[in-house]
């Protein structure tokens, strides 16, 4: 056998082995990519609260509304508060945590006076219930009634109490889905969101 023949024998014999190794490499690569994707998806899933409802209206214009005042029965619309920051609070008379939050909201509403508009919206409730409640507690700020919860759906409300922070341009900056436990906490939220500018 000549040297030339040897060269010919070695080179083609290596090709099938290389192809097999490449195939295995591609297979392992695909398996690793799939595993990485699954780990990423699971990590994202486990990192979120399964009970929380996403909220995507932040940074968008607050939906317009016209609702009835609980004290006078007059209609009030969002348009009336153009150019002023708003704290919009959704609550109901049957909601326990809402009752504990009332003094907090009331104190902060008094503190800010005309600088910030405070609006309470009663939904998932009856009008007589809400009227009686408002009379008894003597709220310091405007209370409106959403009889069929349509405004609540427009705002993406998913529980009570929920508080929306709308800046003076009419943009929803954020919302809070848990009750504020102290005036300081609510005040800090207002300062860091709708009074930031």
């Amino acid at each position, binding site marked *: 056998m000549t040297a030339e023949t040897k060269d010919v024998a070695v080179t083609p014999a290596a090709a099938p082995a290389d192809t097999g190794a490449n195939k295995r490499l591609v297979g392992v690569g695909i398996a690793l990519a799939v595993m990485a994707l699954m780990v990423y998806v699971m990590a994202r899933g486990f990192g979120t609260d399964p009970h929380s409802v*996403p*909220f995507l209206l932040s940074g968008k214009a607050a939906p317009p509304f016209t609702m009835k005042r609980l004290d006078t029965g007059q209609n009030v619309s969002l348009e009336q508060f153009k150019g002023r920051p708003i704290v919009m609070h959704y609550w109901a008379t049957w909601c326990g945590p809402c009752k504990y939050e009332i003094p907090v909201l009331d104190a902060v509403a008094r503190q800010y006076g005309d600088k910030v508009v405070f609006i309470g919206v009663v939904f998932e409730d009856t009008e007589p219930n809400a009227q009686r409640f408002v009379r008894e507690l003597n709220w310091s700020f405007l209370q409106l009634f959403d009889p069929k919860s349509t405004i609540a759906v427009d705002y993406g409300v998913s*529980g009570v109490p929920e508080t929306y922070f709308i800046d003076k341009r009419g943009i929803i900056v954020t919302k809070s889905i*848990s009750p504020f436990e102290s005036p300081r906490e609510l005040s800090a939220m207002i300062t860091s969101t709708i009074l930031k500018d």
Partner: protein
Amino acid sequence: MLSFVLSLALAQGYAPPREGTTPLDTEREARVQRLGKQLRCAVCQGVSIADSPASMARAQLDKVRELVEQNKSDDEIYDFFVERYGEWALMEPRKSGVTLGLWVFPLLLLAGGVWVIVAGTRKKPAAPSGPATDAANAAAAEDPFLAQVRADLDK
């Protein structure tokens, strides 16, 4: 946890019952119900707004009714809820955009699995040592490399 408890409070009907909205005509109401089956109740656990007895779900269904009355398309109605609650609002993820992967990926995995099984079963066991088979000879005859080796050996 707190929001979950509060959500349950809404879902389990502690809210006083309220007056329902009058259904639309048969055809449009059927559409309302069909769309309602595809939208998740915001205060329930995995129930559509058409199936949930929660007051808030009825409010959401009323909103669907209102949008149907305004002649909004199915996509516009889905978008309304997705804008407020995210893709979470849809009982089934959309078959487009990023969520298309949720539909396609399992099929790709299945196809990959089938391919692996088929490729594994097709692979022949290593040829036993001894005389070559007729098939192997035929293959060797077609292989120019082996033909060259044979030619060299015959020299």
